[in-house]
């Protein structure tokens, strides 16, 4: 099924949350993050979405980077969550849970409270 603009916008909105969650337990590098997201089907985002987002999260101090030598060539730039990033993840998770519940209720009840 071809991806719609709606799916693309929806993914864009939740991608930040998903990347923060992926990096909560362990640090990872760009290529690995892109390929991991690709395994989640609709969450598969292009490099030109993921890499700029990673940079922005770093600029916002939600992520920090460190270099590790790579057998593939240039050093890998690993991203990991900062304390600020952990707080951002917790906040986004709460917002997402509330939103998902609200949408589900709306879909089930058809707007009848």
């Amino acid at each position, binding site marked *: 099924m071809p991806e719609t603009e709606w799916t693309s916008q929806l993914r864009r909105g939740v991608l930040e949350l998903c990347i923060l969650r992926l990096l909560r337990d362990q640090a990872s590098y760009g290529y690995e993050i892109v390929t991991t997201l690709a395994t989640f089907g609709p969450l598969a985002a292009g490099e030109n979405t993921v890499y*700029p987002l990673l940079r*922005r999260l770093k*600029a916002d101090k939600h992520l920090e980077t460190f270099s590790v030598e*790579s*057998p*593939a*060539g240039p050093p890998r730039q690993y991203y990991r969550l900062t304390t600020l990033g952990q707080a951002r993840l917790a906040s986004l998770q709460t917002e997402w849970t509330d939103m998902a519940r609200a949408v589900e209720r709306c879909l089930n009840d058809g707007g009848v409270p």
Partner: protein
Amino acid sequence: MSQEDPMVAQYVTRLQNALRRYSVPESAEIVADVRSHIAEALNYGQPLGAVMTTLGPADTLARAYAVELLMHEPKDARIEALLRFLKIMGFVIAGSFLSMIVAVTLGGFGLSFLLAGMILIVAGGLEALGVHLAHVHTGGLPPLVTIALGPVALAVGWGFCWLLWLYVRMAARALRKALPGKTKA
């Protein structure tokens, strides 16, 4: 270090130019990320053509970075920019008044003493030769003393001018420091 594929080198150059055109910060780190991505993908057995296709055109990628990094500028960065602007304005306003007073005082004293020194030397010299200038009064000082006072006045005048020069240099340095720095190419 192995030779970079011409296709990758060309892509990186285009990306660097586009990042510069969009004034995207940390372009060196972004380029390193992209180089690393390409190397990793090739290492995982993806063909170069496919890797470059999924990356998309260099200009599109640079624009995506610009949108993320420039349009989602954190609030504290905007506050920092405002504070920098207010600092420059404060500096210009306060500096203008101070500069007016300092320049007038030091410049006025400096030029006056330099002029007085020259007049003293000329007047003293003429007095010694027996020529009396109308409207020039040496206060009854002997001509040689008048001549000797000339260099002293010149030195004092030069001192004031030197202080003015030091002030101008200091003000220019402070202004350069207050203005936003140039971004690295």
